[in-house]
């Protein structure tokens, strides 16, 4: 942590540049206090917590069905990842086994969501380096995926696809056809986007920026594309298969790069787009027939879940997402603990930012694809003494009432 009093203000060229909580380079609020000397970043202090919503606490006051929709609204981009992870834990506690077709459909939506999330990031990356045209082209491709979501699930972002013991909506043959068509489109567009990203002006801005060595990545426990771009080969889809990934194991490979810079992180995402197109096609080819859920009323299913606890993890677009769920045997939750990928990744920002130029700050911040409303936690810092204390659930409850 940077102590303001220690910084020498008398040095002319050195000053504090506040980035955020409101800044055009950051789509979600967090605060970076950057100490710069001319263009060089000397030190960084990260502050989160501007959009803390107390979701874990809220979930404990709701029943399980209500909590599904609450977890869906943690993130506006990887909403399906959150519900899948939560429902997997519930199914583990309740000993429910969703039918095969439901697992395949979950995987399908999961991968489509990854497509839209990665395309979103590529667009924002282009926007951060002032390349508005590439941003528009990328988001035009993303729009097709969103339209597909609207058709399959009835909403562009919050799909409400998962229910306890399966999925809510079936895929009609017409939709499957359209999915394949859109995937072919996306493949062509991604190839073009890849060419643009390999073009000279973009590479100039991205390569060598925000280096994170394999050692540091391992030490800081980063996850997802950020880790894979630093040479760590780790993917929950391969290492601990969930949903239908076990069956689809042969249809994709884990992308990994050695460089560890912003360009590698972008490239990993582009190459993952090609992989996920394969997964979607394989999932559609092998889609088994049969029911899509357990066919019981949701309220009855909810009551069948006994007291117990489970940990579930999925590979969300941004990395490994972990849920710890403890049910109370009624229809509610005793404790919900969420470790989002951004929470794991955001610490690595400090390592990447120190020593870079001001112009690189938005690029580096974007390259880990931060999703901040997922990552906000409360830590109280006493301003006078610098003492840090963490508020526990009981205290929070008392404060609320």
């Amino acid at each position, binding site marked *: 942590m940077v102590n303001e009093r220690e910084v020498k203000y008398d040095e002319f060229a050195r000053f504090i540049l506040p980035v955020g909580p409101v800044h055009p380079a950051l789509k979600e609020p967090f605060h970076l206090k950057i100490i710069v000397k001319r263009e060089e970043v000397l030190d960084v202090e990260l502050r989160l917590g501007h959009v803390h919503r107390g979701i874990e606490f809220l979930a404990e006051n709701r029943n399980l*069905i209500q909590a599904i*929709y*609450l977890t869906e609204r943690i993130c506006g981009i990887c909403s399906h990842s959150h519900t899948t992870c939560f429902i997997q834990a519930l199914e583990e506690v309740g000993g429910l086994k969703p039918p095969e077709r439901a697992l395949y459909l979950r995987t399908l939506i999961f991968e489509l969501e990854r497509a839209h999330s990665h395309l979103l990031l590529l667009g924002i990356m282009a926007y951060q380096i002032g390349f508005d045209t590439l941003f528009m082209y990328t988001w*035009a491709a993303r729009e097709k995926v969103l339209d597909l979501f609207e*058709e399959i699930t*009835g909403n562009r972002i*919050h799909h409400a696809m998962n229910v306890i013991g399966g999925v809510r909506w079936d895929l009609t043959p017409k939709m499957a056809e359209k999915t394949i068509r859109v995937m072919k489109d996306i493949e062509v567009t991604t190839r073009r986007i890849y060419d643009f990203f390999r073009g000279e002006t973009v590479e100039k801005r991205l390569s060598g920026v925000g280096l994170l060595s394999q050692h540091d990545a391992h030490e800081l426990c980063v996850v997802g594309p950020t880790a894979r771009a630093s040479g760590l080969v780790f993917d929950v889809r391969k290492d601990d298969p969930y949903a239908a990934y076990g069956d689809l194991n042969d249809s994709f490979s884990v992308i990994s790069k050695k460089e560890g810079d912003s360009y590698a992180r972008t490239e990993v995402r582009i190459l993952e787009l090609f992989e996920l197109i394969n997964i979607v096609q394989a999932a559609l080819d092998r889609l088994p027939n049969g029911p899509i859920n357990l066919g019981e009323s949701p*309220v009855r299913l909810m009551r069948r879940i006994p007291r117990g606890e489970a940990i579930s993890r999925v590979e969300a677009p941004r990395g490994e997402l972990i849920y710890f769920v403890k049910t109370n045997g009624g229809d509610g939750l005793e404790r919900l603990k969420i470790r989002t990928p951004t929470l794991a990744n955001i610490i690595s920002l400090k390592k990447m930012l120190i020593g870079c130029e001001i112009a690189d700050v938005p690029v580096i911040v974007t390259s880990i694809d931060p999703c901040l409303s997922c990552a906000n936690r409360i830590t109280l810092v006493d301003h006078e003494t610098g003492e840090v204390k963490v508020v526990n659930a009981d205290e929070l409850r008392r404060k609320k009432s």
Partner: protein
Amino acid sequence: MIWEALKSLFKKPLTVQYLTKPDEKVPVPERYRGKISYNRDACIGCLLCIRTCPAGAITADERKVSFSLDRCIFCGQCSETCPRKAIEITSKFEIVVYTKSEIASQ
């Protein structure tokens, strides 16, 4: 990139207007989750929808239920919970009004 940009200059814009033609909106897909329609006669008053509504948008009302659309998050859980299919999701999405009291009357 230059060719791509110059080619795009002579292509039709990708933007989709809200009204594709006068009085004609972009078609919404079949499953689109819009405004709730409630069949009061079919309702048996089990109040299960109140228990499962994540937003607390449904309240009991003389052994039946009533909806406050300003709290609705359009998840469609109530229509799934309902044992008699008295609640249906329509694809109507233009529900913007000027005052809060108008929402209640919808």
